[in-house]
């Protein structure tokens, strides 16, 4: 024991002795280095120093775009993208702030995306480069599709599939609404085939059309695999339209239903036991393993989150997935996607096409869901209110709330919310399956 103490003390002594020695030697080297630098330092007048400093400011960079400049990722930049492009994009991010804060459009994602976009358009700082912090976030979780999957886990942990299990046939409405995806896919390729405006490849068209699934993480997942360059516009379109569900959907829903149909009351949903709730995620996962392994990253994450929720024994884990984890990843995902709002990526004609096609995809999906519900109402024993069909686009739970609201306009006592949750959550699965099909085609 005494020996040990002695050894320690010696170590101490040595380290004390060594420390100043080491420090002074490093100081020396710094000093010699400084001397060398000082020798090289040119003497400048104060005005020259100010003008040199001015050249490193943002004002100079905005006003004097250079030829042959590259962005943080080493891609060439046009003069327009360096000056006006950036300024326009900064105003666009301000517009997104306005939509998020004043209008409440999906603020949880739109705000980080817009702020990421603002940071991405700062000249000289290279924040979106591979060594910038947003660039690092992008490489860490979006390029390799990690973040959307973690979000999906959280969505699974937050979602109660009870209404779907109680009335499984409403899942078909979730399937019908995926028609929006494939309808706009055809629209996108038709636009590039027959008009000179756009020139989307099949891959790009597929990535765009997934907006019709009204599912943000799925859109980002598919875009990052099929056409990373369009991701910024696709994510912004997907989240803006999800936020606009209460404005886009009701007119379409009213157009395709009669007043009598909107008043249809549905049968009370039965209770669902724990065993069925436990079996549900496993069933969905096994089906996707058998039919479409390509969609298992998405469906696997979703069902894992849900399984943890319904198991009832890992509340801590499911609580983390529902709250802390999904919040952290939302911040990272938003900022990372925002990096694709850099002027050179976003201010292209394709963006307008994507915004327009996204809207078409959404509308077609809503319409297909409502029409499918009308057909099912004709053949089903229990009445089905066609309004719940529109909830088949997956935007959970916004679309279900819209069904409920439009239903109550016709009959204030008609509560459709829980009935609409069935197609709503089926829509999440449906769009994940559709994403899997698109990915498997290009494999």
């Amino acid at each position: 024991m005494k020996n040990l103490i002695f050894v320690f003390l010696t170590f101490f002594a040595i380290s004390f002795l060594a420390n100043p020695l080491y420090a002074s030697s490093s100081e020396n080297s710094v000093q010699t280095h400084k001397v060398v630098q000082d020798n090289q330092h040119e003497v400048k007048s104060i005005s020259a120093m100010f003008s040199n400093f001015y050249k490193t400011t943002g004002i100079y960079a905005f006003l004097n775009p250079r030829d042959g400049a590259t962005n943080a990722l080493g891609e060439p930049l046009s003069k327009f993208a360096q000056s006006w492009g950036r300024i326009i994009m900064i105003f666009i991010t301000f517009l997104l702030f306005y939509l998020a804060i004043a209008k409440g459009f999906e603020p949880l994602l739109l705000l980080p995306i817009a702020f990421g976009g603002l940071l991405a358009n700062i000249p000289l700082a290279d924040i979106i480069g591979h060594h910038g912090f947003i660039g690092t976030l992008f490489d860490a979780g979006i390029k390799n599709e990690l973040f959307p999957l973690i979000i999906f886990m959280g969505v699974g942990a937050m979602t109660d599939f009870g209404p779907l299990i109680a009335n499984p046939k409403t899942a078909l409405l979730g399937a019908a609404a995926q028609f929006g995806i494939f309808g706009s896919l055809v629209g996108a390729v038709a636009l590039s085939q027959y008009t000179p405006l756009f020139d989307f490849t099949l891959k790009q068209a597929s990535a765009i059309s997934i907006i019709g699934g009204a599912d943000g993480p799925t859109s980002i997942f598919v875009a990052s695999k099929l056409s990373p360059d369009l991701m910024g516009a696709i994510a912004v379109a997907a989240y803006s339209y999800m936020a606009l569900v209460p404005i886009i959907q009701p007119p379409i829903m009213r157009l395709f239903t009669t007043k009598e149909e909107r008043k249809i009351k549905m049968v009370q949903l039965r209770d669902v036991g724990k065993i069925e709730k436990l079996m549900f995620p496993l069933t969905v996962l096994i089906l996707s393993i058998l039919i479409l392994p390509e969609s298992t990253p998405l469906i696997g994450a979703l069902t894992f989150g849900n399984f943890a929720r319904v198991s009832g024994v890992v509340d801590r884990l499911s609580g983390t997935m529902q709250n802390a984890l999904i919040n952290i990843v939302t911040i990272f995902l938003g900022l990372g996607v925002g990096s694709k709002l850099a002027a050179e990526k976003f201010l292209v004609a394709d963006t307008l096409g994507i915004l327009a096609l996204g809207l078409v995809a959404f509308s077609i999906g809503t319409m297909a869901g409502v029409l499918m519900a009308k057909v099912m109402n004709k053949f089903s024993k229990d009445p089905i209110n066609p309004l719940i069909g529109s909830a088949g686009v997956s935007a959970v739970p916004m679309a279900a709330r819209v069904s409920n609201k439009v239903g109550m306009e016709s009959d204030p006592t008609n509560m459709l919310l829980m009935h609409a949750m069935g197609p709503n959550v089926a829509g999440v699965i449906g769009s994940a399956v559709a994403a899997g099909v698109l990915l498997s085609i290009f494999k």
Partner: protein
Amino acid sequence: MDNVNLVVEGLKFMVLGMTTVYLFLLLMVFVLNIISKIVKKYFPTKKLSPIYTKREAPKISNSTQDNDAVVAAIVASIQEFKKQN
């Protein structure tokens, strides 16, 4: 590539995609119905255990009626106990 009709390709995607989505969800409906039948038959609904075990404090009834009943039961059992001894 130029003479490939993209629209036809897109339509093919649509047929394949919608078929798969419908097939998947139809199968899901089918399996869910079977499961619900099995559960009904072999695990008939007793008291449904709540899925979300929010740790609720055991309910302490405050209504005087309930308390009276409880008090009466306790008194009765004590009397029984005393009689036996």
